[in-house]
């Protein structure tokens, strides 16, 4: 399977230096952390995104872990870069198509970017449910 150079670059950076590339986890029980886990092992990808949000609804930190193909891992990384420093409202407006475009994902891999968008929505929902 031929991957775009961008996917390969992101994948390899993440693989070789995970801690510098937002791989990890935040305390899921903290009130300021929202967790979104999407996908299923049987389908070949699972993405877990965690966001830390300050009192002004701004995302101050994000961590992820992803089980899946190179494109899924690269999509997670791309998503995190787009999320950092954004407000929740801005984050909510991130579309899978933007991620796919930036990574030049082929049609067969579009579900990776869809998964990334879903994980953002779920992480925000989890955070907001703690505030409610």
């Amino acid at each position, binding site marked *: 399977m031929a991957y775009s150079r961008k996917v390969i670059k992101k994948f390899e950076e993440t693989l070789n230096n995970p801690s510098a590339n937002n791989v990890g986890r935040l305390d899921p029980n903290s009130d300021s952390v929202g967790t979104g886990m999407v996908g299923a*092992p049987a*389908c070949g990808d699972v993405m877990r995104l965690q966001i830390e949000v300050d009192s002004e609804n701004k995302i101050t930190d994000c961590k992820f872990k992803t089980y*899946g193909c190179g494109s899924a891992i690269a999509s997670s990384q791309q998503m995190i870069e787009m999320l950092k420093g954004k407000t929740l409202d801005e984050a909510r407006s991130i579309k899978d198509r933007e991620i796919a475009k930036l990574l030049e994902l082929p049609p067969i891999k579009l579900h990776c970017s869809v998964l990334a968008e879903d994980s953002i929505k779920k992480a925000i929902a989890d955070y907001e449910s703690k505030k409610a």
Partner: protein
Amino acid sequence: MRTKAIYFDYAATTPVDPRVAKKMHECLLLDGNFGNPASRSHEFGWKAEEVVEKARLQVADLINADSREIVWTSGATESDNLAIKGAAKFYKDRGNHIITSKIEHKAVLDPCRQLEREGFEVTYLDPDEDGVITLEALKKHVKENTILISLMHINNELGSINDIDKIGDFTREKNIIFHVDAAQSIGKINIDLSKSNVDLMSFSAHKCYGPKGMGALYVRRKPRVRLEALIHGGGHERGFRSGTLATHQIVGMGEAFSLVKKEMEKDNKKIKELSEFFWDQISGIEEIVLNGNKKNKVANITNVSFSYVEGESLIMALKDVAVSSGSACTSASLEPSYVLRALGRPDELAHSSIRFSFGRFTTKEEVKMVAETTKRVVRQLRELSPLWDMHLDGVDLEKVEWAHH
């Protein structure tokens, strides 16, 4: 093309042996043996026919058959098509039931599907957990109207071996045509068709250091097996397969088979040692699963799953190593291996299977390097894997409710 990548995908295809390439080259140019083997009126034709018949003997010799039982084809896929469709159509008056298995190559499964569309009934057997079709399992599905059984000798993904002698004795007694796809067998396991009651057997040249686009079908003479031809146009190959014979390809296959006969023992000894060395190196990785049974498989194929690591990402991380996930024909799709699924492996393990296959030119240095790389990237990918986290936290993944998509 020279790359620094290490080739560990010999079960997909092999490079042509230089000695084979040399023989093939002799049959191409004006000053070489380029004639049409079917030309009866001049020396060019006679000389070409001579080397084609020599190659037929070389192929027959390796499998202990009569050279008149060898039909040249364009590869194992065509051989499988000719055997399955050809026998089913010829013997359709006897019945319309065919038996095969769920872990056959697509070159067998797809012709069977086609026959179903044409009114035949096909039973697809489940393998046991090691990827083997046992005679006992087969017997349960044989019916009065069963005319053909098609099973592979060695599974291309797992390397598991079916006992074709035992099955052949049974099919002979029942007067059922027995076809065996032996594309993965040549050079790995002995075949003696004077002893095995196999009626039709498919071979490929490129899996054993011969050229691609070349194969053969063994068609038994005693008792005589008949087929309806698929390709018409001149009645070459005793009517089984028309078309001008590709002298250079045929000579390549003959030479490749003759080299196998000479060097199989030596090659296999080396590959077995390398394979054991490889397994010693990687078997210490946590949560590694060997697919197939070590006691009943060919040494050149090692198929493993690393739990909580997805196969495609593993292949991408093993960037200087050529391996495959599932079979080469299906690696463009997102489906997990249908072979592993048929063994009853959970989908996530089927998603994470990697086939390492060694061959004649594999070195110990390469095996060592690949084992080291594999250990490293599995560790790296697990560090990225939320499933590995959950596993370490003691979460039972089977009990998690996943949102399937």
